[in-house]
């Protein structure tokens, strides 16, 4: 595995180095460099330290594992591949992602999973181990967002989750009694069938971060789905 010491490198130089090879790579001493692995195709990338904003933007097949926290816009418009974060992440994780998987051991900031989409066989999955900030899954149009609420006592998600949601599914490992959802979605206790759907991702979470699947699935989950794929249809009159 190619190793790059990134401690004194700016993002342009680092991007260039990463584009020069297709080898699996480990980055050490990562210090907030942005755009790491933007558009990267099939290969493995291990990051030690803290990658900057837009890690894995437009990711196209690479598998990234970060040993540390990550900042904003992780997996922005991601197409395929995986990102595993041994820590927490900033805002807008998985913005408009339409494929691949993101696993976050800890918490996510504002606007996680907004605009997530799916089509045909592409089904993006975002798993957040801790809690999620406000506006989770805003405009969600597809894919699956799973929040586990581990290591936290407060509400599993902050304000205004699922506004404008018109596709996909959102799972919260909580009874969600204290969460206010907008009118255009339905939040209900997850059935055994719903839970079947998320089983592989929960097991994968345990593979990445340890933990026990049985105890994860043992708690009640709430599943949120949109009432309509055409939420704005009624609002217009032709002029």
């Amino acid at each position, binding site marked *: 595995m190619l190793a790059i010491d990134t401690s004194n490198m700016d*993002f342009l130089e680092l*991007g260039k180095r990463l*584009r020069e090879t297709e080898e699996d790579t480990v980055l050490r001493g990562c210090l907030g460099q*942005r*755009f790491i692995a*933007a*558009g990267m*195709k099939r290969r493995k990338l291990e990051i030690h330290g803290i990658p900057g*904003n*837009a890690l894995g*933007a*437009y990711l*196209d097949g690479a598998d990234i594992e970060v040993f540390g926290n990550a900042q*904003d*816009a992780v997996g*922005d*418009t991601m*197409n395929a591949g995986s990102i595993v974060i041994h820590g927490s992440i900033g*805002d*807008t994780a998985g*913005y*408009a992602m*339409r494929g691949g998987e993101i696993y976050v051991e800890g918490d996510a900031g504002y*606007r996680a999973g*907004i*605009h997530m*989409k*799916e*089509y*045909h066989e*592409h089904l993006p999955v975002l798993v957040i181990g801790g809690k999620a900030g406000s*506006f989770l899954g*805003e*405009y969600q*149009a*597809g894919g699956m967002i799973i929040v586990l609420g581990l290591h936290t006592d407060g509400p599993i998600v902050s304000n205004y989750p699922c506004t*404008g949601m*018109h*596709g996909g599914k959102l799972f919260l490992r909580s009874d969600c009694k204290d969460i206010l959802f907008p009118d255009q979605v339905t939040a209900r206790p997850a059935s055994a069938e719903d839970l079947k759907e998320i089983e592989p991702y929960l097991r994968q979470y345990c593979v990445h971060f340890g933990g026990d699947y049985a105890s994860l699935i043992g708690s009640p989950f709430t599943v949120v789905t949109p009432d309509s*794929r*055409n*939420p*704005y*249809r*009624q*609002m*217009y*009159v*032709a*002029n």
Partner: protein
Amino acid sequence: MPGINYFYPEFEVVRNDARCIRCQVCARQCANEVHSYDPERDLMLSDESKCVNCQRCVSLCPTRALKIVKSDCRLRENANWEGDTIREVYKQALSGGVLLSSMGNPKNYPVYWDKILINASQVTNPSIDPLREPMETRVFLGKKPEKLERDENGNLKCELTPQLELSMPVMFSAMSYGSISYNAHESLARASKELGIYYNTGEGGLHEDFYVYGPNTIVQVASGRFGVHRDYMEAGAAVEIKMGQGAKPGIGGHLPGTKVGPDVSRTRMIPEGSDAISPAPHHDIYSIEDLRQLVYSIKEATGHKKPVIVKVAAVHNIAAIASGIARSGADIIAIDGFRGGTGAAPTRIRDSVGIPIELALAAVDQRLRDEGIRGNVSLVVGGSIRSSADVVKAIALGADACYIATAALLALGCHLCRTCQTGNCNWGIATQKPELVKRLNPDLGYKRLVNLMTAWNHEIKELMGGMGINSIEALRGNRLMLRGVGLTDAELRILGISHAGE
């Protein structure tokens, strides 16, 4: 309440019965189902309430038996409460809905292009005959170096940041697959290739069949990120970040699920039948610094090989906004004036938000010059460029190139009926219905676009020659070549031109 929902139709179908041969072409051609045949009485009937005055039936009637006229059955004249204004109130009182329109702002606002006149040489500084002498209309879009630099051996450093090369200063602006048809896109793509210019995917992704036109394609990234992935950005010659659109500044786009069929779904990478919602803001952009992040994430994903365009609507603070964008790392700024077209926009926004492109352009060019950053970016302007004269005026006001869309659609047969939002375009442009799409033959459509652009290019050369200018470079920002007529002092000051006679 009987009658209260009845509007007398806006248009009337006038059929000359002496000419009508009952061939029923009109009935087959009108997707709005206005015409029908009554075999019992051997009569062609019309339901004018559905007519949008697209002139399809008029154009195809083999005996010229048809005419569509504006109805003269209307409410009492009132300069304040015009017929359309009243009709809009009725529509909303009935439905409770937001009014939705299409194509550009049709209201009677000043068109500054028509109040600006171009200079020509007389006696001194002779004019140039473009038929005899070489004229350069080629332009390069992208960041320009501030000064010449030499390496240690005294050789010129020739490394430039990526540039777009255009054979003439006009491109086809963003129209998404979804809002316009496959055949319309094919026509635009092929024409761009033949002309050596670019067309723009809009925010609907790039259909797999059109990747071959990649070198002449600008691919767009908008807030919904439809169809945006690495290969898509790789395929394009440049990537355009859409922050705004002249027809609907400050709001997003919304393609109704009914228009998201299998092909559009595949291209946009969203489920079939699901609304394609592009929200007003990019939810990760709240500052120029955030914009810079998106610009650089695209540059990193494409290996810094492609210029990045940032498209914004012309709004009140456009000069300050453009100054920020010019520092964001973007290579090109596209500004879309308030008359820009659209496949669908709320009427109130289209007709009352934004500012004219002429004023926006002049203000931006001046501001960037004042700040010494004009070379950071190229400026592309759109939002109702209707002719080669508009192009020449725009360049003299400071633009590097123009974007056109409505003019291109007119070349493809659009009759400006302004009902694109219905998806029933009888001319095969703003529709996804196969039987309508096939009415636009891309083999002919692309030729017509090539014709239009070739003609404009000749005219641009002729206008330049008249001014004694033989290269577009020498025209750019050359406001001495322009004079205003009937403009106020404030307008002249903003445009940076003198009044005619001065």
